């Protein structure tokens, strides 16, 4: 009887914890949607901000974030995938391998503001890229590399060893085997895993704060060495730095809604493509 009572209590606690999480997420999203939709209009999405962001739209911030995301993908995806292929297919287990793994895990744990400082020191100042899209993308790429590497390596390792052996036994070289009989089955997993990292890059403020993001810049960039506005930083500015924080509250919620739709949209795309690919290849 006592153990049955305890069973009930534990079950109840576990359920409460789960419901609590769902409640938190739901209320965040509800809050943003409820307060944000009033601000959203075609004009909000497609025009420049005016009057320090108190009026007008957020077009340069949207464009800036999209550019940063695109640039980050271009830099981080090939680098991360190449690293994952090396770790999964080529590297022999040993001290070097352990060191590399430790480095990756450590990199994943570095706070994002530290990445920002690192980007400021290396890309902005030392390499003289200035505060620019290039510097921002490179910094964000460093930040999400661990996510991409881990996700990619996992999906490479998910390909059974027997497929590699089957290919090698036919006289294929290692690279032929990887290219024709490993990558085709894992590239989708690599991509979907990476997209999750990219979603994070879209939402981060600290790394871009010191390397690219403009406080207020109501025009579109002309080159990759220009500064841009970005959604997360714009939101931060509106919420804390603006002379009239209360008045611009709808703008804050509108910006937050656009950002969250963007990030969730990216994640949704990742999930859908994973489902699609799972159906295509099975072993």
């Amino acid at each position, binding site marked *: 009887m006592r153990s049955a009572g305890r069973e009930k209590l534990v079950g109840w606690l576990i359920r409460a914890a789960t419901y609590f999480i769902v409640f938190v997420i739901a209320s965040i999203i509800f809050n943003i949607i409820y307060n944000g939709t009033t601000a959203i209009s075609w004009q909000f999405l497609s025009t420049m901000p005016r009057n320090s962001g108190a009026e007008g739209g957020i077009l340069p911030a949207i464009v800036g974030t999209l550019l940063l995301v695109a640039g980050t993908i271009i830099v981080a995806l090939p680098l991360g995938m190449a690293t994952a292929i090396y770790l999964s297919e080529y590297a022999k287990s040993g001290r070097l391998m352990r060191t590399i793994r430790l480095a990756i895990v450590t990199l994943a744990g570095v706070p994002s503001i530290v990445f920002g400082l690192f980007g400021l020191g290396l890309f902005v100042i030392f390499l003289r890229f200035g505060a620019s899209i290039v510097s921002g993308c490179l910094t964000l790429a460093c930040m999400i590399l661990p996510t991409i590497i881990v996700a990619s390596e996992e999906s490479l390792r998910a390909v059974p060893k*027997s*497929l590699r*052996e*089957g290919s090698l*036994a*036919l*006289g294929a070289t290692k690279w032929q085997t990887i290219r024709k009989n490993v990558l085709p*089955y894992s590239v989708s997993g690599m991509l979907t895993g990476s997209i999750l990292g990219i979603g994070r890059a879209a939402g981060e403020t600290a790394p871009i704060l010191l390397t690219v993001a403009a406080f207020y810049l109501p025009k579109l960039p002309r080159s990759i060495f220009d500064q841009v506005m970005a959604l997360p930083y714009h939101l931060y500015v509106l919420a804390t730095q603006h002379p009239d924080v209360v008045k611009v509250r709808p703008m804050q919620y509108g910006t937050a809604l656009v950002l969250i739709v963007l990030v969730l949209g990216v994640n949704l795309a990742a999930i859908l493509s994973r489902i699609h690919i799972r159906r295509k290849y*099975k072993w």
Partner: protein
Amino acid sequence: MVKTEQQNNTEVKIQVKDLNFFYGDVQALFEITMDIPSRQVTALIGPSGCGKSTFLRTLNRMNDVIDGARTEGKVLIDGKNIYDHGIDIFQLRKRVGMVFQKSNPFPKSIFENVVYGPRIHGVKNRKELSEIVEKTLIRAALWDEVKDRLDKSAMDLSGGQQQRLCIARSLAVEPEILLMDEPASALDPVSTLKIEQLLQVLKQDYTLIIVTHNMQQAARVSDYTGFMHLGQLIEFGKTNQIFTNPREKLTENYISGRFG
């Protein structure tokens, strides 16, 4: 009556000389020496862990893939040592095909499975590839069952069909030798019978070496049998002799079921 002795003159395809193999510090094969005859079925039997599969994989250097693997001694195919420096390991594996214990069709169409090897080795012409597919699937006794669905996934075939597809895939690069690591151990009796019948046809053109757990199978399909125990080749000879009149006590104990 003179003939029986003369069969010993069968041409030798593979000469193994003093072969030792190590996984790191652990020695897995000890001083193996044997002459494997051309265009015959040679079976390797022995208890689990005796090194049959390891030995098989030294013949196409598949063990090279393993970290810390080391091979000593010689394996001569047509008189040429495959462990010499400068040997083209990819050409070697083209000549020495391998079929695995667990059938491993690639998650592609039946057609793409068969042409995988030829494509790797530079065949691009679509017509040529189609001919290879038809020829090898006929040879692997699978053509009639799959000819209408070559573009369907190989993963939808039955276990026995998958294994015959893997045999066809190996044949598609025109090997001279085919190594088979317990090719029927995961199959039902009917599929096993088909594979065994196939071996009898294939041995007319290929040198076959088959690792098997199943002594009845070795007795049924092979011309020569090697019995391995703890990494050593205990006895090697004509299958008939091994099973009826083994020279070694250990062989006799094993084939009579006293251990294993």
